[in-house]
Each structure stands twice: as C-alpha cells, then as structure tokens.
C-alpha cells in the first residue's frame, strides 16, 4: 500500500488550537492525511483533533516532543507514505506555507526546512533563544556546507528516503533539530531551506523556555560532539518501533 503525503502534527495540551490547525491544513487542498500525535495530553487535544478530521495516535503517557514526532514518522513509515510534512499544533506554523514544502520535495530535496528567517518577518523571540538559534545555525551551516538559518524549525518536509533514516531507534527524544540535520547530511540526504511565514504562538507552553534553554544548549552541543564517535543505537527487533511485529 503506497499513500502520498502525511502531515504529522505532534500535540500536547493543544485542545484549543489543534482543531483550527487541522482544519486549515486540510483546507489547503493538498490531499494530505493529517495525523495528530497526542503526546498524552490531559485535556481534550485528541478529541478536538479527531473532530477536525485528523487521524489521532495517542501516547498512553507524555513522552516528549521528539518521541511524538518519532511515533508519527513510524506510523507514516508503516503505512507506506511517500513523503511527510510536519508542523506544530500551537498555531505558529502557517498551513498556507505547506505547498512551499511540497514544492521543494517535488524538486528533489529529501529534507526541507521551513525558515522563518529567510522570509524576513520572523516573530519576536527571547534573547536566549535568538542567541541559541544563531549559534546552532552557524554550526549546522558549517557542518552541512549549506546556509541554514533556522535549524530549530519544526516546520519540515521529508522524503521517503529521509523517513527511512528518522524511523531508526536513535532519533532524539527531546529537541530534535541541529543534530538531526547533521545526521541527515551525513546520511547523504539532500537538504533545502524555504522561506515560510510563522506567527507568534497562540497559547500553550514552548518547550524552549526558562532553564530549558540552557539544558537545550548543553544537550545539543554534547550530542553534536558525540555524533562522529557515537556507536549506532543497537537495533533489537523487540525495541524497534518502526517495524511491524
């Protein structure tokens, strides 16, 4: 069974926003299958997403943003989707920009990154977050050999080839951004960045907030340093999420 395009939306405590995001994505007329991964939300996120027309996968408990994305990837992989788009459920990512990601995938890119900075009208963020983004953009650009302006963007598109890389068990459980881009580059995937419009988040809590930004910086630097010398995650059949048992 081969399907065309899945849109993965990881969501946690987004009952008030996810419905509008799903409806807006479906209204783009791209023939998308919208899949919301509810990351163990205590509110009505799953019901709101289902009512808006999405397929919902619910984690039994909160596992984190990276895990929610990974579950979506594994679902798309199992269901045989040819390509995948991903966006956040908090209203930051404008569904009207989805065709730009699809176009870039059609032009042969394996990984497309929607950049708020290329468009020139990025919503304001905190100084700490801006600094971290600049630093990791510089590292990612240097490592991949191409200009990357928004490595923390969760507004992305992946080809089936890229999907094969991210369904492995080594996918980071939290903050999957610069390290994943570098891994894509090392796997020989073609990266591209397209300008997208983003909005100020409509509500909820950012995972880049307060002391978490310091942990994010520490974790990302550590992961990047370990990347060239780290052993691959052992793929035991019983631990592999992507595989059908």
């Amino acid at each position, binding site marked *: 069974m081969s399907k065309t395009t899945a849109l993965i939306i990881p969501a946690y405590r987004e009952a008030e926003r996810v419905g509008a995001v799903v409806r807006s994505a479906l209204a783009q007329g791209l023939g998308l299958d919208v899949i919301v*991964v509810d990351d163990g939300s205590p509110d009505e996120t799953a019901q709101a997403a289902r009512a808006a027309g999405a*397929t*919902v*996968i*619910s*984690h*039994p*408990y909160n*596992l*984190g943003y990276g*895990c929610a994305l*990974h*579950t979506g990837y*594994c*679902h798309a992989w*199992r269901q045989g989707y040819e390509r995948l788009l991903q966006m956040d459920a908090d209203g930051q990512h404008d569904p009207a920009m989805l065709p730009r990601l699809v176009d870039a995938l059609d032009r042969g890119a394996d990984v497309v990154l929607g950049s708020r900075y290329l468009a020139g009208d990025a919503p304001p963020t905190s100084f700490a977050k801006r600094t971290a983004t600049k630093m990791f953009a510089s590292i990612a650009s240097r490592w991949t050999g191409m200009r990357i302006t928004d490595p923390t963007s969760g507004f992305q598109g992946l080809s089936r080839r890229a999907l094969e890389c991210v369904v492995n*068990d080594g996918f980071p*459980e939290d903050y999957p951004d610069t390290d994943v881009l570098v891994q894509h580059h090392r796997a020989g995937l073609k990266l591209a960045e397209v300008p997208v419009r983003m909005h100020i988040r409509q509500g909820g809590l950012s995972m880049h907030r307060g002391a978490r930004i310091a942990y994010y910086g520490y974790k990302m630097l550590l992961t990047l340093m370990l990347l060239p010398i780290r052993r691959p995650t052992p793929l035991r059949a019983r*631990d*592999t*999420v992507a595989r059908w048992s």
Partner: protein
Amino acid sequence: MIADLAHAVADVAPLLDRQRYVALGVAAAVVVVVFELMRRRKLREEYSWVWVATAAFVAVLALEGNVLTAISAFVGSSSPVWTLFFGAMVFLLALALQFSVRLSRLTHRHRTLGQRVALLEAEIQRLREQDAGERAPERRAGERATPNRARDIVA
C-alpha cells in the same frame, strides 16, 4: 616497597572494638532490611545480591581488622574509619552510575513500549473503522429485509 608498607601499617591506628561492633551492627541491619524488602516483594532478588555482598564485605573488614589496616596503609590513610567512609563513598558513586545506566535503558524501553502501544491502538481503530465500513451495506440490506420477515411472522 614491602618494608615501607609494613612501616605504614604500623602507623595506622587499629580499629576500636566499639567501631568494630557498630560496623557489624550496620552490616547485620543491611541484611535484615534487604531480606524484609524481598519478603514484601519490594526488592527483586537480582538487586539484592549487591547489598548482601556489601554487608558481608563490611562484616569481614570489621572482624578481620588487619585487612582494613593494610588497605588504609596502602591508600595512605592514618585511620581505618576514614578508609571505610572513603570506600563507601566510592562504592555508592559506582552504584549510582550503574543505576543511571539501567535507568537510561529502562527509559528507552518504556518510551518504545508507549510508542508501540499508541501505534497499535491507532491500527486497531483503523481496522475497526474499515470493518464497520465494510459491514454497513450488509446491515442496510438486513434492515430492509426485517419488515418482510416481520410480516411473514404476523401472517
């Protein structure tokens, strides 16, 4: 070298009887608590042996004071009590590190399990919906047939 060590051993103050009894008491208490936890099924056997072995080791050190004195001389300590505390600290550090490794492995498995449950539930839901869709025409046909059968029964 051996002569130096023998000299150092002579410099180390021997373990007092009271210290010896306290150490033995602590070792016995550890064994009792570990057995009680296992009896209540709060501690698995696989994690108990480390504590039982530790208690046995402390008991041996208390009973055989020369061993502790020799170790103290070797590490350059003038007091066997300090050596005991230092050894306990290193041991607990190693244990904590080992538990961190186990915790990392369990976290990975717990997350994988959660993800697989979520995916399987989604698949069950999809198959149910597919099944319901396939049965709907059959049900509609059955519903049309029912009044006819009812008429037959009445007749």
